[in-house]
């Protein structure tokens, strides 16, 4: 099959059986890859009552149709499972080189189930696929282990690892690769750890078959020459995503002190300029990318060892730097290293520590809970000690190992009001109180709160930050177009920042595969995935869907105290009105349940049958569902 490695691996970790089958052409065409594969496989295979950390959950490693191709930039690999943070569909991706290497070894998709009898790692060297013992590696930090395995296996292996956090089941554990790229979200590292899988090592030397290679590469070659001089190229190459720290502060959406504030008065001490001036070692790119947004850095703090890490990127600076109120970029970079090596998502990890810092500020946890330590804003020693408590689940660390929602449910005392999360996953690094579409995006997102599925800060600005009018259809459009890149398994930044169009990506797919595919067809796949994930979530957690689309009280009721967004807040009435609008535009009923009409229109009528049996199928919409769901606001959005 042109455009694909050709083989799917099925691995039962309990029995150590490894099965190879040709990648299913129908699965490939109807679900396109990565996020799409994950959605379909989880829906079809995972029992609805399966424990996310148990043997029946699947742990999926997957590429998409563009992975390893010459299209900009097919660097991504996806991981999928039922999330221990949200108890729903999880897909989390990362760049680097692992995805392309899998394709060059001939594999599109690896589906694992069961639990290994002993700590193991998956070894793939072209046609050789083995589960190997990882007893010597168990307990090692993610970054330390990658260095060790490169020495043990060879520099030309691409390696993904988990750290102690993943071994210990902390629900925001990540998977790390290439000394600083992470599949960070949804707790995919915790599920990998629950399978007793410490690492994945891959070497591939085969060719990726292409239908019309000359057209495929000519298209990319033209894009490459065109984008070299794009005005966004230079700042992205110099600062990467850290460029946006000042931008967010000026717009009053930079999470500060656990979202108590949205403007960090010392932001210039932790922005991209400081990062490059004080810490930069080298610029680092994912496979096939000429924008090199990765910043490899060294943190230097008197009294601590120097650390090397990739980043911090914008999200880490926001949720570790801003939300924990650091005022020194070296401290943010050092914290980045700590979380990377211990194997925690810097987004949810940073947010969870910030949430704990607010609990400490309010006297809800005290030094007695913290082994005699404090947990002060902006204190790197306190941060380091507390992260260790979480990773090893010591004392109150065991509570915060559940993330902000899980911890708030145990702590009580109204803490849930300032847990900035949706469905159990923490917000990305943008406050929402002046950005209602972003709040709607987080709270309706199928994997829990994450900007990657819909980022609307510029949409809110264009449509007016004080209004909710017209926001819902744009959120829906973004929830289809942005995750499409996770389905193709390529980086979305060339679209968002360099004006490479989605149509050009589809043209590239046509040359690669020989399919007569269109962008409309791809968008339908993306909507199909969104609806299947919604049905799956309701089937696992009960209905109606609306009761899960809940915003934290802070973002509904608590006006921003100061800064550019002073006094702003979304308000409950506005939020509920946006939800009504959102459901109507999706073809769901007022309870947030998908209707049979929309599910059948998307070719997943079986999900309607299942929801109907459970009593959670949406009521038919008088006058029918909208023919087109979602509305494009402008040609691009980040």
């Amino acid at each position, binding site marked *: 099959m042109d455009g694909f490695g050709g083989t799917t691996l099925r691995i039962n970790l309990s029995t150590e059986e490894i099965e190879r089958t040709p990648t299913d052409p129908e699965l490939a065409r109807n679900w396109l890859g990565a996020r799409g594969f994950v959605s379909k496989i989880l829906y079809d295979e995972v029992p609805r009552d399966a424990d996310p950390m148990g043997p029946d959950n699947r742990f999926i490693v997957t590429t998409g149709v563009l992975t*390893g*191709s*010459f299209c900009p930039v097919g660097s991504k690999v996806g991981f999928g499972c039922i999330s221990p943070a949200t108890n729903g569909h999880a897909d989390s991706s990362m760049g680097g*080189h692992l995805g*392309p290497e899998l394709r*060059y070894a001939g594999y599109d998709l690896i589906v694992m189930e069961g639990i290994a009898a002993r700590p193991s790692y998956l070894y793939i060297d072209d046609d050789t696929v083995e589960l190997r013992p990882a007893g010597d590696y168990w307990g090692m930090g993610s*970054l330390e282990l990658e*260095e060790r395995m490169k020495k043990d296996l060879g*520099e030309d292996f691409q390696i993904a690892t988990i750290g102690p956090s993943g071994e210990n089941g902390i629900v925001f554990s990540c998977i790390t690769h290439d*000394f600083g790229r992470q599949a960070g979200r949804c707790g995919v590292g915790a599920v990998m750890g629950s399978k007793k899988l410490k690492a994945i090592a891959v070497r*591939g*030397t*085969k*060719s*990726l078959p*292409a239908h019309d*290679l*000359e057209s495929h*590469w000519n298209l990319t*070659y033209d894009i*490459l020459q065109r984008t*070299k001089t794009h005005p966004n*190229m230079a700042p992205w*190459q110099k600062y990467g995503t850290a460029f946006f720290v000042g931008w967010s502060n000026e717009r009053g959406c930079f999470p500060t002190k656990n979202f108590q504030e949205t403007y960090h008065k010392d932001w210039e001490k932790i922005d991209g300029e400081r990062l490059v001036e004080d810490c930069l*070692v*080298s*610029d*680092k*790119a*994912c*496979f*096939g*990318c*000429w*924008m*090199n947004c*990765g910043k*490899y850095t*060294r943190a230097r703090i008197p009294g601590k060892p120097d650390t*090397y890490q990739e980043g911090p990127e914008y999200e880490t600076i926001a949720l570790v730097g801003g939300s924990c109120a650091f005022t020194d970029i070296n401290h943010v970079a050092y914290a980045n290293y700590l979380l990377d090596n211990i194997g925690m998502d810097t987004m949810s990890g940073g947010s969870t520590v910030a949430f704990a810092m607010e609990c400490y500020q309010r006297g809800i946890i005290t030094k007695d809970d913290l082994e005699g330590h404090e947990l002060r804003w902006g204190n790197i020693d306190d941060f380091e000690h507390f992260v260790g408590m979480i990773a090893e689940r010591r004392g109150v660390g065991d509570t915060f190992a559940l993330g902000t929602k899980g911890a708030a449910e145990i702590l009580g005392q109204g803490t849930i009001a300032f847990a900035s999360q949706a469905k159990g996953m923490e917000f990305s690094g943008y406050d929402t109180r002046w950005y209602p579409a972003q709040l709607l995006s987080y709270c309706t997102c199928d994997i829990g709160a994450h900007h990657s599925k819909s980022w609307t800060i510029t949409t809110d600005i264009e449509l007016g930050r004080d209004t909710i009018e017209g926001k819902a259809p744009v959120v829906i459009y973004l929830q289809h177009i942005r995750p499409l890149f996770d389905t193709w398994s390529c980086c979305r930044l060339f679209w968002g920042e360099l004006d490479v169009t989605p149509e050009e990506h589809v043209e590239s797919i046509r040359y690669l595969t020989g399919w007569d595919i269109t962008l409309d067809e791809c968008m339908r796949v993306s909507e199909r995935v969104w609806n299947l994930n919604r049905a799956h979530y309701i089937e696992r957690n009960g209905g109606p869907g609306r009761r899960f689309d809940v915003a934290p009280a802070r973002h509904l009721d608590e006006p921003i105290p100061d800064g550019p967004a002073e006094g702003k807040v979304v308000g409950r009435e506005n939020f509920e009105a946006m939800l009504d609008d959102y459901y109507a535009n999706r073809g769901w009923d007022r309870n947030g349940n998908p209707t049979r009409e929309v599910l059948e229109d998307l070719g997943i009528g079986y999900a309607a049958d299942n929801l109907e049996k459970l009593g959670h199928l949406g009521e038919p919409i008088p006058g029918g569902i909208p023919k087109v769901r979602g509305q494009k606001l402008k040609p691009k959005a980040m």
Partner: protein
Amino acid sequence: MRIKIKKESCTGCRLCEQICTIWHYKEINPKKAAIAIEPHFPEPGIFEPKLCVQCGICAKECPVDAIHLEGEAYVLHADECTNCGICVEACPIDVLYTHADVPTPLKCDLCLKCTEVCNTGALTVVRRSD
């Protein structure tokens, strides 16, 4: 004319490897490239492009004279090569590569395609006199 390597500018994107195999073998397979990016991580945290400097030692050592000086490049002629491996061994900077599916060593022929895709100045074309 030669390719100048500025390793501190290399970001490890491997577009050079990609284009090398697309151009020479009409295949997507960076492992067949005549250039390789060597990462040095976690410390010192830099990438090193490893590429032929056209010194000609391989041509002198080749027992069947399959490597010819053409313009400023020593070009390996696949139809004359016996794949004995002597050139690979002889290369003083280890930049003649091999791949199990290719019946000859992989040698840079100075096509310059890698310099066209490099966006950071890590690989640039300079004249010999520069």
